[in-house]
């Protein structure tokens, strides 16, 4: 295996007016890792996500996916390049069924004339086969996330945990190399969190790389191979979960300066 990191971000910078939200953030994620991005509220984690996935245009930095630079200036192109994401506050297509949500995820990997307007109107053989394939793949993904029984339910009627799972299924449908999850465990109870951990480990075993923002320190420590800690838009620590946990700067950022001296 080559040593090229799957996702490498160098000196990412993002400024909102006078606020420097990201001040030269660099990180490098190896293929097949589960990589944690943590930090106190307002540290810039979600901004970093929005920058690497093209939602916010960066004010500087170099972005490489599998050794190739990509420019995060259009969200749909980032998805095409191979980064799929979920959102902190779930963003499903609420009035579509769970299955249709995942089918939309196949959009970016289904091209060609027969998938366009003419294929659809003429119902060409290739179109029908393509649709059947999209449907089958979407069902498979729902099954993979354990929510196949809700395939025909309207997305907004699913429970909170299932909506989070559906969002992951939809992201996986785009065949990403890197799956970026923004607080996937938010609002989940202990059982759901355990289930999530199993799911993420399975996704990793199946060859995906995962970048995860998470507040639940226990979950991050148990799950991630490496962790980067952000505070005020800067990287304050990087390393294995155990290393990071002992880092005085991290303790200070989370608990205040008194904690290290007391």
């Amino acid at each position, binding site marked *: 295996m080559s040593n090229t990191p799957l996702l490498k971000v160098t000196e990412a910078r993002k400024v909102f007016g006078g606020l420097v939200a990201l001040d030269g953030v660099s990180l490098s994620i190896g293929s097949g890792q589960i990589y944690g991005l943590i930090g106190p509220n307002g540290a810039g984690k979600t901004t970093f996500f929005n920058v690497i*996935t093209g*939602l916010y245009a960066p004010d500087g930095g170099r972005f490489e996916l599998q050794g190739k630079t990509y420019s995060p200036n*259009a*969200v*749909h192109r980032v*998805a*095409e390049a191979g980064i*799929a*994401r979920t*959102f902190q506050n779930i*963003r*499903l*297509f*609420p*009035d*579509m*069924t769970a299955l*249709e949500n995942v*089918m*939309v*995820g*196949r*959009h*970016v*990997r*289904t091209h060609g004339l027969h*998938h*366009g*307007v003419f*294929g*659809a*109107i003429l*119902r060409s053989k290739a*179109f029908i086969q*393509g*649709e059947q394939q*999209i449907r089958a793949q979407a069902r498979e993904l729902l099954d993979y996330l354990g929510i196949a029984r809700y395939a*025909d*339910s*309207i997305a907004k*009627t699913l429970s909170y945990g299932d909506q989070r799972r559906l969002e992951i299924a*939809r*992201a996986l*449908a*785009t065949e990403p190399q890197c799956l970026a999850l923004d607080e996937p465990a938010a609002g989940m109870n202990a059982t759901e969190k355990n289930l999530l951990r199993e799911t993420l480990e399975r996704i990793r075993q199946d060859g995906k790389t995962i970048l995860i923002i998470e507040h639940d320190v226990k979950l991050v420590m148990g799950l991630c191979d490496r962790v980067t800690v952000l505070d005020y838009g800067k990287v304050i620590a990087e390393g294995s979960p155990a290393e990071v946990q002992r880092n005085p700067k991290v303790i200070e950022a989370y608990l205040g300066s008194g904690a290290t001296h007391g």
Partner: protein
Amino acid sequence: MHWGNVSIPLTRRNAILAALAVGAALLILPFIVGLAGNAWIRILAFAMLYIMLALGLNIVVGYAGLLDLGYIAFYAVGAYMYGLLASPHLFEQFEWIRQTFPNGLHNSIWLVVPLSALLAAVFGVLLGAPTLKLRGDYLAIVTLGFGEIIRIFLNNLNAPINLTNGPQGLSKIDPIEIAGINLSRPIDVFGLTIPSVQLYYYLFLILTVLVIVITVRLQDSRVGRAWIAIREDEIAAKAMGINTRNVKLLAFAMGASFGGVSGAMFSAFQGFVSPESFVLMESIVIVAMVVLGGMGYVPGVILGAVLLYAIPEALRYVAKPLQEAIFGNELLAPEAVRMLLFGLSMVLIMLYRPRGLLSARRAT
């Protein structure tokens, strides 16, 4: 079930039987209403034109969730395109046209229908391109302006070069001719005289069925899902790799093309077009058809179009005698009754069925 499909068990056999029954009823319908006069068949024919318009707008408003208050502009584009290509106006105005087409401009329906769809689609993209970043109220205002711009252009493009003949409009527009049958003359089939309006009704019916088939097929496809995804959550749609710019433009173009075809048919049917057929009120009525019937749901949109077109038309014939019978004289002009009912129905729909008369009933 797929998005937007009815929840009754829809086996292929049932669907075909239902389609045959409805088809037969629609074929026979003009013979029945024709007994009360050709004016009623004319109402049916116009209802078809409005169904096409409403289904076209449904793609933009119902599927892609982009509020378009200037949709009538595409109807105008189609109508004027046919009017210009099939009336003596350009022939009389331009020397080079007289020389190139010594017999005048007459065009076959096989050319006109695709061309009107195409031209309207181009205008759809023209409207769509500058409004891509707008949503909701802002988009509505720009599209409203676009609709007015088209009408004002048509009104004023009679100088310095007389292109549209201004407010006087285009007259002497050719009727449609298919396979040697001129639709403006009645024909005899097995001793049965079928009047001209009824021939047009059948033509419009065929086109409407075509538009319905295209709509339903698009809805259940990758393109249709992308439209609905944009309506549901544009950012999430982008994150799924949907190129929202292209997909929105496609919605504008597809929607406009239905309007263009409908407009061309209107022009041929009337034999005359003028800018006053394309006022803002028409755009609003079409939006109301889509909203009242059920946004994004084909049977709902069809119902909305029929109700909002046919009922006010019927009122013209019924309102006066009815009022005279009840009150002894006519208290309200049919137009006033029409607007009253229109407003009342919108208020009631918003109160009691905010998703429209018929909406996709979905299992939860």
